[in-house]
C-alpha cells in the first residue's frame, strides 16, 4: 500500500497537523526523526501518556519498514472551519483527538444536488462533518449516475480544505469523476482518480476563485479590467469554442453571448460587493456543459451547469446593513408572513428577508444618488431567457441558498412581474404577489446553515434564440 507523506503544517496558535506514512518517515534524517518523535503531543494523564507511547512506537515501526496498514495522523488541538462549524455547530464539543478515535464510517451521496434535493444534500454535508469530527477514518461514495449540480462538489471542496485528513477514499462513478476532473475539482476535493480521461462531451469551465477578501489592489481603478470581467469573458469564449466543434458547427448568437456575460457579470459583482462589509468579498465559480442524448436517442441537449459560492455574510446578514427605513419595511413584510402561534411553516424570518432581496430596489447599499438592487432579478430573468424551452424536463432551474434560507426558482415561479412603478417582482407564489405568503415548496428553511451564499443554476442551450448556425448571425433579441 502506498502511503503518502503529506507533511506538517503549522497553524496559528493551534499546534500542528501531521499525516505521515512510511516513505515520509524514512525520508527524514535521524535528527529530524528524533525531533518528530519528541513533538508527539501528550495530555498529562494516563491515557495521554499511553497514546504518546503508541504513536512513537508506530513511527519507529514505519521507519524500520515493518508493516503499518494506515497512515498516522497526529492532531494537536481542534481546527476551526467556518463552513464545518456552521453546518455542524456542535462540532467543537463532539470533536475527538485522533488518538481517541475508534469508529469508521461511510457516507453515500445520492441525488447530491442543491437544485434537485437541497435538504438531502445539506444533510449529506452534515453527515460528512459529523464523520470528520469523530471517525478514525471514513469514505465518501459518490453514487449518482450524473452530475446534476456542481455547487455541492464545490462546497465539499471548501470543506475538505479544513478537514482532518481522515477521509480515505470511496466509490466514484466515472460520469462524476470526469466532471470533477474536467473542472479541476478533483484536486480541490483531494481525489485521486486512475484511468479516467476527460470526456469530449464535457466542456469545463474550471474552478476559479477570487483571491481572499480584502485583498484588492487594483479593482478600484476604472482602467483596470476586474477579475470578474476576465472570468466572465473566459466563460463565454469557452462555451463558444465548444459549440463551434459540434457537427454542424454552432455558436452563441449575439443575444445569447450578451445574456451570459451579463448574468455572470452581475452575479460576481454582487458576490464581491455584498458578502463583506468592505465590499471586497471573495467568490468561487465553476461550471460545465455536457452534451446529453435525450430519451428519444436521436437528439442532444446541451446542459449547462453553473455554480457560484460566496463564503462570508449571508443575504440576511448583509441586509442588516441596509438603511433603517428599508429594514423596517422588510421586517413588516417578514412579520406579515411569518408563522404565527401554533401555525407551522417551512420558512422563517431569515428566509423571508432573503426572498425580499430578490426584488428590484432592495439592497443594503444606500440609494441616495442612484438606485441599487437590480442584480438578482436580472439574474432570474436571464436564466429564464437562456433556458427557454418547451421540454418540461429541460426547464431552467436555479437555487439560492443563504444561511438556512433556500429559494427554488423554476417553473411555474420563474417569471418576474412588473409593478405599475416599473419594479420587477418575484414573490414565488401562485399570484406572484408579495401581499401573499410564498409557496412553502419553493421557499423554505434548510436543516443546517451555510455561512454565505450558494447560487446553483442549470439550463439547456438549445433554443434558436441562443444558438446560431456557424457563420450566420441568426437571432438577435
Amino acid at each position, binding site marked *: 500500500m502506498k502511503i503518502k507523506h503529506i507533511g506538517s503544517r503549522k497553524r496559528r496558535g493551534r499546534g500542528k497537523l501531521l499525516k505521515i506514512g512510511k516513505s515520509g518517515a524514512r525520508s527524514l534524517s535521524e535528527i529530524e526523526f528524533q525531533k518528530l518523535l519528541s513533538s508527539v503531543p501528550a495530555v498529562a494523564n494516563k491515557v495521554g501518556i499511553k497514546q504518546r507511547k503508541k504513536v512513537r512506537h508506530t513511527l519507529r515501526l514505519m521507519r524500520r519498514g515493518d508493516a503499518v496498514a494506515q497512515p498516522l495522523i497526529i492532531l494537536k488541538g481542534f481546527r476551526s472551519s467556518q463552513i464545518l462549524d456552521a453546518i455542524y455547530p456542535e462540532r467543537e464539543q463532539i470533536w475527538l483527538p485522533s488518538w481517541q478515535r475508534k469508529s469508521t464510517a461511510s457516507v453515500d451521496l445520492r441525488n447530491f444536488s442543491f437544485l434537485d434535493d437541497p435538504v438531502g444534500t445539506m444533510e449529506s454535508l452534515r453527515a460528512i462533518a459529523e464523520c470528520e469530527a469523530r471517525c478514525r477514518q471514513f469514505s465518501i461514495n459518490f453514487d449518482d449516475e450524473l452530475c446534476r449540480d456542481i455547487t455541492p462538489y464545490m462546497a465539499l471542496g471548501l470543506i475538505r480544505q479544513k478537514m482532518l485528513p481522515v477521509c480515505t477514499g470511496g466509490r466514484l462513478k466515472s460520469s462524476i469523476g470526469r466532471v470533477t476532473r474536467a473542472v479541476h475539482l478533483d484536486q480541490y476535493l483531494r481525489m485521486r482518480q486512475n484511468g479516467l480521461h476527460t470526456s469530449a462531451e464535457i466542456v469545463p469551465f474550471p474552478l476559479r476563485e477570487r483571491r481572499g477578501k480584502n485583498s484588492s489592489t487594483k479593482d478600484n481603478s476604472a482602467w483596470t479590467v*476586474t477579475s470578474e*470581467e476576465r472570468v*466572465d469573458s473566459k466563460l463565454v469564449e469557452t462555451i463558444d469554442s465548444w459549440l463551434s466543434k459540434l457537427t454542424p458547427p454552432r455558436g452563441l448568437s449575439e443575444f445569447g453571448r450578451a445574456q451570459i*456575460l451579463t448574468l455572470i457579470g452581475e452575479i460576481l459583482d454582487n458576490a464581491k460587493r455584498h458578502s463583506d462589509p468592505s465590499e471586497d468579498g471573495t467568490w468561487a465559480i465553476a461550471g460545465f456543459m455536457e452534451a446529453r442524448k435525450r430519451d428519444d436517442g436521436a437528439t442532444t441537449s446541451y446542459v449547462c451547469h453553473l455554480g457560484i459560492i460566496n463564503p462570508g455574510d449571508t443575504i440576511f446578514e448583509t441586509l442588516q446593513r441596509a438603511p433603517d427605513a428599508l429594514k423596517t419595511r422588510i421586517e413588516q413584510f417578514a412579520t406579515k408572513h411569518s408563522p404565527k402561534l401554533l401555525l407551522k411553516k417551512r420558512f422563517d424570518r431569515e428566509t423571508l428577508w432573503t426572498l425580499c432581496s430578490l426584488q*428590484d430596489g432592495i439592497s443594503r447599499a444606500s440609494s441616495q*444618488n442612484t438606485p*441599487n438592487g437590480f*442584480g438578482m432579478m*436580472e439574474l432570474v430573468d436571464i436564466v429564464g431567457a437562456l433556458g427557454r424551452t418547451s421540454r418540461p424536463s429541460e426547464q431552467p432551474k436555479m437555487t439560492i441558498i443563504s444561511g438556512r434560507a433556500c429559494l427554488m426558482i423554476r417553473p411555474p415561479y420563474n417569471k418576474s412581474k412588473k409593478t405599475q412603478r416599473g419594479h420587477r417582482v418575484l414573490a414565488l407564489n401562485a399570484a406572484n404577489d*408579495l401581499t401573499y405568503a410564498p409557496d412553502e415548496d419553493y421557499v423554505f428553511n434548510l436543516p443546517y446553515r451555510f455561512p454565505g451564499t450558494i447560487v446553483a443554476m442549470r439550463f439547456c442551450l438549445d433554443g434558436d434564440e441562443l444558438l446560431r448556425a456557424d457563420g450566420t448571425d441568426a437571432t438577435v433579441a
Partner: protein
Amino acid sequence: MNFSERTEQMPQLLDLSKLSGGGDTRVLSGKQRGIQARSDFSLEKFDKEQDYVTVKFAPEVQAVTPSFVLGMFGVSVKAYGSVDAFFEKYRFDVRPNLLAQIRRGAEYSLLKGDPLPF
C-alpha cells in the same frame, strides 16, 4: 430639440475603449467600476455642456451590465429626467443589442423605492 438644432452643435466624443483593457474583457460590469469610470472620464463636465456626446465602446465589448450603466450614467439619466432626454444627449455608437442593455440600465436609474407592499 429638433434635428436642425442638433446639427449645429459640436459633437463631442466619449471614447470608452480604454475600459476594456485592450481586449482583455468582453463585458463591462459592476456598479463600482461604473462610478469610478464616471469620475475618471469627468462625466459631470459632459453633463453640463450643451453639445451632444457620441459614446463609443471598444469593438470587442459585447455586453454592458445594467449595474455598470447605473454607476456610470445613472446620475446623468436622473439629471436629464427621462431616458429619451438622456439618449438625446448621449448618443451611443453601438450595436442594437448593446443599446438595449444600456437602455435597460438607464431605465433602472429612474426607479424609486421598492415593490414591497407594506
